[in-house]
C-alpha cells in the first residue's frame, strides 16, 4: 500500500538555475490558427517507441483525422491525417534529433477543414466537468491509444502507456505539468489561458483511467494569469492548482514530482514508481478531444519566438507543416538569425533544414540571433564547482564530462554517469564554457556500447 503523504513538497527542488525567461516576446499574444497549408508531410515516427507502418497508398483520398499509419508494438502511437486531401509519394525526412524517417505527404483539398475550424471547436466546446462516470478506464485508455496521443511536453512518450493501469504499481496522484520551465516557450501558458476547460476535462478523464482521486496541476509562479484561469475553471472539480517556484528545470518529472509531492523519483525509475503519473497540460487537452469527441491528435499549439523571428507568436498548427511555414507566418527570419531550435533553447534540437516537418512533440521554434549566441573559447576546468552547485540531480558534472571525454568509464560510473537527465544547467553555468552536458551525453551513449562489448570490468 502507498503510505506517502499527499502534498508534502515545498514547491521547489534543490539547486537548478534561473536563466532569463524571455517569455515576454510571445506570452501576451493569443493563439492564432494557421491558414490551411497546401501540403503537410507526416513522419511515421513522432514519438518514443516503434515507428508506424503506413496504412495508406499514394493517390488515396483521406479525410481529416483518418488513420495514416499504426504499429502493433505496445510502445507506439498511430498517426492521422491533419488535413483532408490526397496522399502523395512517400518521402524521407531528417527529424530534428537526427533520425532519418519516412513521412507521408498529403496534398490538401481546398475544402478541407482549416486549423481555425479545429481551434474554434476546441475553445468554444462546452467541456463537461461532471458526469464523466460513464467513461470506463479501459475505454479511455483505448480512445487515447487510438487517437495517437503522446506527451506534448517534448519527450513524446505514448500517453496510453502511462495511463494503462498496473496493479503492481499503484498510483495515487495524477500530476498535470504546466510548469513550462524552458525559456522563450509560451505554448502551454497560452493553452492554459485559452483552453483551460479542455485541460480540466482531460485531467478528470486521465484520473479515471489511472483510478486516482487526487489531481494536481503544477504551474510555475511566473504565469499568474494561467494560475488564475485554471483555478477559476477547476473550481468545484476537486483539482488542486499548485503554484511552484520559477526555476529551470522545474518541468522535468524528476524535479516537479519532489517539488509538489516531496517524493523522490528513483534513479532509472519513473514517477510511476512513487505512485505518480505526470502528463503535460497539452496532453490533457488532447485526451479530452480523444475521449469526448473521438478526435485524434492532428493539431497542436506551438510558440514561434526568439529575436531571430520578426513577429513572435503562438500558433495552432496542423502536424506535418514545415518549420519554414510556421516561421514565414510569423514574418520570417531576421537578417541576423543564426540558429533555429525545435523546442526550447535548453534542451531543444537545432534544425539544419527548414523543410523539416513539425511533429507531435514540437513545443515551439526558437530562433536565436548572432547576439544571443556569443560563442567564446573553451578554457580549462578551474574546478570551481559551479556545476555541482546547480545540478538538480546532485551530480558532479565536470568529473562526469571529463571522464566521458577521456573514456575513463570507471570514473564516469563512480560519478553516476547514467543518472544524468541532460537538463544542461551545468553547461549553462560553466565559467570556462566547457560543453559539459554535451560531453556527458556522449558518455551516456558510449558507455552502454562499451559494456556490451564486455571490455569493462
Amino acid at each position, binding site marked *: 500500500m502507498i503510505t506517502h503523504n499527499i502534498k508534502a513538497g515545498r514547491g521547489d527542488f*534543490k539547486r537548478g538555475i534561473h*536563466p*532569463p525567461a524571455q517569455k515576454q516576446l510571445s506570452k501576451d499574444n493569443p493563439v492564432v490558427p494557421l491558414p490551411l497549408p497546401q501540403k503537410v508531410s507526416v513522419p511515421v515516427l513522432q514519438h518514443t517507441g516503434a515507428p508506424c507502418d503506413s496504412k495508406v497508398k499514394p493517390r488515396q483520398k483521406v479525410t481529416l483525422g483518418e488513420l495514416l499509419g499504426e504499429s502493433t508494438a505496445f510502445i507506439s502511437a498511430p498517426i492521422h491525417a491533419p488535413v483532408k486531401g490526397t496522399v502523395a509519394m512517400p518521402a524521407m525526412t531528417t527529424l530534428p534529433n537526427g533520425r532519418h524517417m519516412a513521412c507521408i505527404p498529403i496534398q490538401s483539398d481546398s475544402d478541407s477543414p482549416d486549423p481555425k475550424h479545429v481551434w474554434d471547436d476546441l475553445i468554444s466546446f462546452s467541456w463537461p466537468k461532471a458526469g464523466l462516470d460513464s467513461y470506463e478506464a479501459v475505454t479511455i485508455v483505448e480512445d487515447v491509444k487510438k487517437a495517437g496521443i503522446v506527451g506534448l511536453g517534448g519527450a513524446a512518450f505514448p500517453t496510453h502507456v502511462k495511463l494503462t493501469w498496473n496493479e503492481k504499481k499503484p498510483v495515487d496522484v495524477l500530476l498535470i505539468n504546466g510548469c513550462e520551465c524552458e525559456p522563450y516557450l509560451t505554448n502551454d501558458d497560452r493553452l492554459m489561458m485559452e483552453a483551460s476547460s479542455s485541460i480540466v476535462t482531460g485531467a478528470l478523464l486521465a484520473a479515471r483511467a489511472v483510478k486516482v482521486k487526487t489531481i494536481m496541476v503544477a504551474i510555475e509562479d511566473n504565469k499568474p494569469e494561467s494560475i488564475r484561469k485554471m483555478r477559476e475553471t477547476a473550481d468545484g472539480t476537486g483539482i488542486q492548482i499548485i503554484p511552484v517556484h520559477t526555476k529551470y528545470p522545474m518541468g522535468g518529472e*524528476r524535479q516537479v514530482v*519532489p517539488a509538489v509531492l516531496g517524493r*523522490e523519483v*528513483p*534513479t*532509472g*525509475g519513473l514517477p510511476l514508481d512513487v505512485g505518480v503519473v505526470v502528463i503535460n497540460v497539452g496532453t490533457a487537452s488532447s485526451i479530452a478531444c480523444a475521449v469526448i469527441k473521438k478526435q485524434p491528435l492532428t493539431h497542436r499549439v506551438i510558440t514561434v519566438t526568439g529575436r531571430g523571428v520578426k513577429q513572435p507568436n503562438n500558433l495552432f498548427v496542423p502536424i506535418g507543416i514545415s518549420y519554414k511555414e510556421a516561421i514565414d507566418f510569423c514574418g520570417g527570419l531576421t537578417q541576423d*538569425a*543564426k*540558429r*533555429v*531550435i525545435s523546442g526550447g*533553447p*535548453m*534542451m*531543444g*534540437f*537545432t*534544425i*539544419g533544414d527548414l523543410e523539416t516537418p513539425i511533429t507531435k512533440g514540437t513545443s515551439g521554434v*526558437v530562433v*536565436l540571433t548572432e547576439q*544571443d*549566441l*556569443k*560563442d*567564446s573559447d573553451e*578554457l*580549462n*576546468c*578551474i*574546478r*570551481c*564547482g*559551479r556545476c*555541482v*552547485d546547480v545540478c*538538480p*540531480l*546532485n*551530480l*558532479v558534472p*565536470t*568529473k562526469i564530462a571529463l571522464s566521458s571525454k577521456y573514456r575513463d568509464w570507471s570514473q564516469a*560510473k563512480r*560519478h*553516476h554517469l547514467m*543518472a544524468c537527465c541532460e537538463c*544542461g544547467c551545468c*553547461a*549553462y*553555468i560553466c*565559467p*570556462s564554457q566547457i560543453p559539459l*552536458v*554535451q560531453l556527458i551525453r556522449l558518455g551516456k551513449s558510449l558507455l552502454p556500447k562499451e*559494456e556490451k562489448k564486455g571490455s569493462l570490468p
Partner: protein
Amino acid sequence: MIHVSPSPHYPGKSRTSSMMMRDVLIALIPCVLMAVYVFRSHAVFQIAVCVASCLASEAIFSLMRGKKIPLRDGSAAVTGVILALSLPWSAPWYVGVIGSFVAIGIGKIIYGGLGQNVFNPAMVGRAFVMINFPVALGASAYVSSGTGIHIITQATPLTAAKLTAQVSGLWPLFLGTCNGSLGEVSALACLIGGLYLCFRRTASWEIPAGIFLSVIILGGVANMVSIHKQITVLHHLFSGALFFGAFFIATDPVTSPLTPLGKWIFGIGLGFFIMMIRLFSGYPEGVMFAVLLMNGCVPIINRYTIPVPVGGPVPEKKVS
C-alpha cells in the same frame, strides 16, 4: 546561414573564468591599500616585482610549450599579487622573482597550466623561497629599526607570542596596525575583500567557514589548557595570515574540493593544521604549509565526497 549544434543553446549570462579572476583582484584591493598604507613603498615594490615576474614567467613557459600566451585569463596576475602580499616587506627583489618563477613554472605550468595544478601556485613559490632564503624570510626579516616606519620596529605578533608570550591588542591586530607579511596585517581588509568574494560566489563560503570553525574550537581548547591565558581565540583569528589565507588562498577553486561537503572537510582540516603548526611547531605561523598539506588531500577528498544523486545511485543491471 543557420547553424546546427547540440543543446543547450543558451549561453549563460554567468561570469567567465577570467571575470572570476578579475573579481579576486578587485577583492584584493583593500589588502593592497592597507599594505601600502602600512609599509609604504616597500609594498608597492614587492607587488610590482611579483606581478611582473609572474606575468613574464607565464609568457615564457607558455611560449616554451608552444601555446598561445594566456595572460588575459588573469590567473598569473592573481598569483603575483597573492605571492607579493605573503612576503615580508624587506624581501630582496630576487626573492620575489624566484618565488614567482617557481610559482608559475613548478606550481602551475608543469602540471599543464590553469586548472591542472594540485598545489596553490603562490604557496608553492612562497614555500620554495622560504626554505631557500630562511634569513630573508625568517622572523628577523620583519623587524628593522631606522626605516621611519614605526610598526616594523616590533616583532610580528605571532612571533612575539611564540617566543615571549606577549600579546598585542586586538584592535591593532584587527585593523592592521601591526607587523607581518604585506597583505596579512589587516584582518578587516581581508574580511571586506573576502566577503565580497563569497557574496559574488567567486569563493565558496564553506571553506573560510570551516577554517574559522576549527580555529575557534582548537584555539579555545588551547586557551583553556595553556598557561598563556592572554592568547585568546580572537588573537588566533586576527593574527598571522589566517584571514588572508582563509579568504584568498584556501578558496582557490583549482586546488580546493568540488562539492560543498568536500569544501567543509577541506576548511576544517586546514584550520586543524594551522593550529597544530602554530601550537606545536617551530614556525610561528602555519597557513602556507597547512594549505599545501590540504591541497595534497583534495583528490582523495573529492573521491570520497561524491554526492549521492537525487533518487539514489544508478541501479546495477541484472546479469541475465
